[in-house]
């Protein structure tokens, strides 16, 4: 066909239409690329690009020897999508699934068939599809592998971090726990959060149509920084010895609570600290709040007779008395500032006692005489210097500072009552560290629980060194008092059950009457024994405090009866564990096999 047969109008019209079509097309391109560019680019990027948080792993907590106390593990939350669950195809596999997850079969079946849920909507109760039901909250890699092997399409797991404490209740009060939301709630976990938590990272990447990450289009990535590890001064074995003893105490005396603390006097290192009742941080949600309390730092009690060591040390340091000076403890009244003050009574009548005997026999009157001699201001100052009325700053939250009233708030009898450990209250840790002043040549040290924080690659290490707080008494006075305290565990002392021949045990018993209904109770006691050994070169300080031991008929829950034997048992095990050499040849640590010959 020749061109001459086509109408020029038609061809002209066609040209215009084609030209217009191109104009519209170009116009559209211009519109999309210029005017709508930003919005469309955003949509495209949003569909293609993705941002993922790379979670950091919380640091481990280890003991002084590197044993793992708290770690973070990756677990799987296994669940089911009931809408995708096929009863015919997978029904039989549920028996196996229930067996693997150690759950009742009926429970698993019920969860798989929970297809609808009722929701309160604007038009009343509505029924909606259930797309996810948790079957097991945290299963490990091994178990999840077995679950995967079943190949149930609708059952799968989501990875998550979970804090785990391999020792279960071991050192639970010190470690604390991390709750289900990942928030540390108490103990070292909370105190060292800054070091433990780490820093999350992120990755910007593109994904394909199935939302799978396309590695080749990874744009930017900031790697996560795992949390630092924290090493404690705690010794796992010592902690175990202490907790074992607490179990025994709980079984024998069923007390309200009990605390044992072991430390190194020269550094203030806490080697063990445990309370009864305790809890398992892996299952923290099953316990009552009072069981979660670290009573060693949050309960305040009157120190009782253990405070007499403070009174005597202060008086000797001030030179107002000497070890051999004799006081008439038969007197019931003392004159102080032109006033006759009634003295507290002793558990059994004492006659004339030297200062050493006052400590050994734990005479309340004797302590009151020394306190009166010392005077209010000095007694208060020394009590404060020994750490009473102020927090020890051990670290974990919840520490109480105790009660030590200023002299202006004392009543007329306080000067005769405080020297025997009444009218002053302290935490078990404060009492422990007050006594460690005597074991540490007169210097009060700050308790050290954290040894260091370290990065997992070993590039960064932050040490927490021991720190002395203040000198309280002269070294020679401290040694003299330590020598006097050795008498407490001899046959005529109040704690002969704490004696371990050859190891120079020094200590002081305490039996505090609890205040019930505003009055000192005759049946409810707090029994304690705070001691250290060897007295000439103290290596270990052990405190046993038992709150309201239930005694069999006829027996009283005195410190020498209840706490001293526990001290003995713990110390004996510590000596064996630490391989401590006896100071002299008379050692008879419970190495079985009769009398020992150390010369071999």
């Amino acid at each position, binding site marked *: 066909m020749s061109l001459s047969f086509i109408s020029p109008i038609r061809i002209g019209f066609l040209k215009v239409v084609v030209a217009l079509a191109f104009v519209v097309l170009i116009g559209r391109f211009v519109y999309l690329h210029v005017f709508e560019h930003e919005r469309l680019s955003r949509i495209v990027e949003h569909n293609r690009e993705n941002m993922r948080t790379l979670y950091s792993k919380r640091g481990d907590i280890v003991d002084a020897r590197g044993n793992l106390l708290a770690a973070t593990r990756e677990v799987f939350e296994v669940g089911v999508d009931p809408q995708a669950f096929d009863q015919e195809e997978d029904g039989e596999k549920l028996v196996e699934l229930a067996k693997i997850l150690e759950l009742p079969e009926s429970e698993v079946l019920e969860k798989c068939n929970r297809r609808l849920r009722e929701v309160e909507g604007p038009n009343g109760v509505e029924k909606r599809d259930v797309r996810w039901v948790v079957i097991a909250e945290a299963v490990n890699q091994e178990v999840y592998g077995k679950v995967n092997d079943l190949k149930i399409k609708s059952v799968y797991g989501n990875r998550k971090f979970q804090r785990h404490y391999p020792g279960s209740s071991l050192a639970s009060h010190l470690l604390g726990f991390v709750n289900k939301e990942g928030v540390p709630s108490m103990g070292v976990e909370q105190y060292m959060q800054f070091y433990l938590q780490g820093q999350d990272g992120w990755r910007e990447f593109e994904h394909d149509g199935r939302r799978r990450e396309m*590695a080749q289009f990874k744009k930017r990535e900031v790697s996560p920084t795992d949390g630092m590890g924290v090493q404690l001064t705690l010794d796992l074995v010592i902690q175990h010895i202490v907790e074992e003893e607490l179990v025994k105490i709980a079984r024998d005396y069923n007390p309200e609570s009990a605390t044992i603390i072991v430390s190194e006097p020269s550094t203030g290192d806490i080697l063990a600290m445990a309370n009864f009742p305790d809890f398992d941080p892996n299952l923290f949600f099953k316990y009552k709040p009072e069981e979660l309390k670290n009573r060693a730092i949050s309960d305040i009690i009157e120190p009782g007779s253990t405070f007499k060591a403070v009174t005597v040390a202060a008086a000797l340091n001030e030179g107002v008395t000497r070890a051999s000076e004799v006081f008439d403890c038969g007197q019931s009244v003392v004159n102080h500032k032109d006033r006759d003050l009634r003295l507290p009574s002793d558990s059994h009548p004492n006659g004339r006692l030297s200062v050493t005997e006052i400590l050994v026999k734990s005479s309340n009157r004797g302590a009151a005489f020394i306190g009166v001699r010392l005077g209010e201001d000095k007694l208060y100052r020394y009590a404060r210097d020994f750490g009473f009325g102020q927090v020890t700053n051990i670290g974990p939250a919840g520490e109480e500072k105790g009660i030590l009233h200023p002299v202006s708030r004392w009543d007329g009898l306080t000067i005769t009552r405080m020297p025997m450990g009444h009218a002053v209250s302290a935490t078990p840790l404060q009492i422990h560290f007050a006594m460690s002043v005597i074991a540490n040549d007169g210097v009060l040290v700050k308790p050290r629980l954290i040894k260091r924080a370290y990065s997992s690659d070993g590039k960064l290490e932050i040490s927490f060194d021991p720190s002395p707080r203040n000198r309280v008494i002269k070294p020679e006075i401290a040694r003299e008092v330590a020598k006097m305290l050795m008498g407490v565990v001899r046959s005529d002392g109040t704690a002969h059950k704490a004696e371990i021949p050859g190891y120079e045990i020094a200590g002081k018993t305490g039996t505090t009457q609890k205040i019930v209904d505003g009055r000192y109770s005759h049946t409810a006691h707090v029994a304690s024994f705070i001691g250290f050994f060897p007295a000439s070169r103290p290596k270990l300080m052990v405190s046993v405090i038992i709150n309201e031991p239930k005694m069999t008929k006829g027996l009283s829950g005195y410190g020498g009866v209840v706490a001293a034997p526990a001290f003995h048992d713990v110390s004996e095990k510590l000596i064996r564990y630490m391989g401590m050499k006896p100071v002299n040849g008379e050692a008879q640590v419970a190495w*079985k*096999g009769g009398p020992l010959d150390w010369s071999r």
Partner: protein
Amino acid sequence: MNKQTDDYRFLCIASGVFMVAVLGCLALGVVWVRQSASSTAKQVQKCEAQLQQKRRILAHVNEQFAKAHMPSNLTQDTSSELITPVAGQVRWITVTDRMPAVERPVIREPALVSFELALMEGSRKR
């Protein structure tokens, strides 16, 4: 003249074909490089995932190890095996005597026998 025109035409066509070939090769090269980058990236991703998995397993093993080494577990497992050492099984060794004077540490108290050693000796003698 005609031959010269043919030569030019051939040269043009040859240049065109050559350019198309070069461009084609370049394009294919780019595709190949991209494909290589993609497969390498995927391999790296796979390695990272494997490494991550190994780390998880290591953490799991460490945790099991720590659990098994808890004193409560150890005593449960070995309570029938262990005995308290008798006096003859405890030796006090003075470390300083065995070291040259220069290397001798300042120790206030001589070194001591370890509990474990005593236990091992005890088990053997039982």
